[in-house]
């Protein structure tokens, strides 16, 4: 039986692989800046929302009536758009918050795009295929074309 073993001093190739790959570093850096920008954006837009600098689409006092019922009721009664409909309401205080939220949810997709040239360059076809499939899965989820429903 072989345990995860300690690398010997002379094992130079293994020491090289202890360093993170270049595509991994690019992914990490992009993720770092993107995540913190999205969280900062969320903080700023939330302050704009709750201070009333921009009028909300659904009045604040009404939101607390809707959040105890199912999402379908909120969408129907408050006429909240589904899919990417929020993008047309960015001038409203509540939907302005979706910029930061969408960026947060979109960072993984952006980071995956950087992997394509890296795996192409390495001619690593298996991981190129995996990356492309993952991008398609994320695009499918983000597109909203799988239909709407809910309770």
């Amino acid at each position, binding site marked *: *039986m*072989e*345990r*995860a*073993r*300690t*690398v010997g001093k002379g094992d130079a190739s*293994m*020491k090289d692989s*202890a*360093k993170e*790959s270049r595509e*991994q570093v690019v*992914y*990490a850096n992009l*993720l770092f800046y993107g*995540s*913190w920008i999205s*969280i900062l954006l969320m*903080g700023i837009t939330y302050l704009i*929302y*709750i201070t009333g600098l921009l009028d909300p689409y659904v009045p*604040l*006092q009404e*939101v*607390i*009536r*809707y*959040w*105890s019922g*199912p*999402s379908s009721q*909120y*969408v129907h009664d408050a006429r*909240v*758009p589904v899919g*990417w409909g929020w993008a047309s309401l960015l001038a409203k205080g*509540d939907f302005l*918050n*979706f910029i930061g*939220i969408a960026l947060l*949810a979109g*960072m*993984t997709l952006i980071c995956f795009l950087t*992997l394509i040239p890296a795996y192409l360059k390495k001619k690593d076809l*298996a*991981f190129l295929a*995996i*990356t492309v*499939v*993952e991008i398609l*899965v*994320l695009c*499918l*989820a*983000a597109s*909203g074309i*799988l239909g709407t429903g*809910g*309770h």
Partner: protein
Amino acid sequence: MRDVRRGVLFCTILALVLLVGFSDLAWAEEGPPGSTSPWWVWPLVLLFFCFVLGVIAVLAGVGGGVLYVPLVSGFFPFHLDFVRGAGLLVALAGALAAGPGLLRRNLANLRLALPVAVIASSCSILGAYLGLALPTNVVQICLGATIIFIAVLLATSKNVERPEVKNQDAIGAALGMSGVYTEPWSGEEVEWKTHRTLPGLVLFTVIGVMAGMFGLGAGWANVPVLNLLMGAPLKIAVGTSKFLLSITDTSAAWVYLNQGCVIPLMAIPSIVGLMLGSFLGVRILAMAKPRYIRYLVIGVLFFAGGRALWKGLGL
């Protein structure tokens, strides 16, 4: 050290008091719970509650989502749809914030994460639609059962720091699921590889569905599968699991976002509160290892799981 322990205990008790107090307030009212309170009360309570939750989650070694969803859906006046939407964003924010550091230290491995992520994220979309299509009480019952299972898992599972891997299987070898990481304290470089890749990938279909269906981060399931089944060292399993959440939860989060299940008024204080709490938790963790917090969290999970079952069964 004693002050730290007292502080943590105080925070935990305060969180529990808040839970009971505000859930009583919500249940006591007629009509939609919370409708007579001023709008600013709930975001403020959520911000503080999630801050405390963030501290406790780090100290207990669990993800924020796994505490957030059962506790907030069980004891706050929000519908499960919105709690799951916010829960996924909470788990996603935590994973995205931790991801860069883990990747740079080689503690999260792209070659291990990517094949698993394709399966888990596809299945999380399915889980999200399943969760939104099923009646709320059915999802609540399943959530309660899952939370109790997680509590049992946390209480009984014994992860292995460096599992024994006899031979790497063909799939693992073909995908290059192996690597080397450096122990930060000793400078020791540790070589690792995985085995039992196929059963591991099959289990990630179930994990993906559950993550999407309940809005939970799935670290509680990722780590045992990567570590105990596939043979990744514990550090790699924990790091890759956290990074994996950033991919799995993204797919499900988009589904909830597109279905109108994200209400910024409650989602953003939850995210900010939990992240700030996690930062404080990490600092406290550097000073003390309050083991009893883990047992306390297991107790809270049993309680929250029981409450979800209670609500789902309409008792």
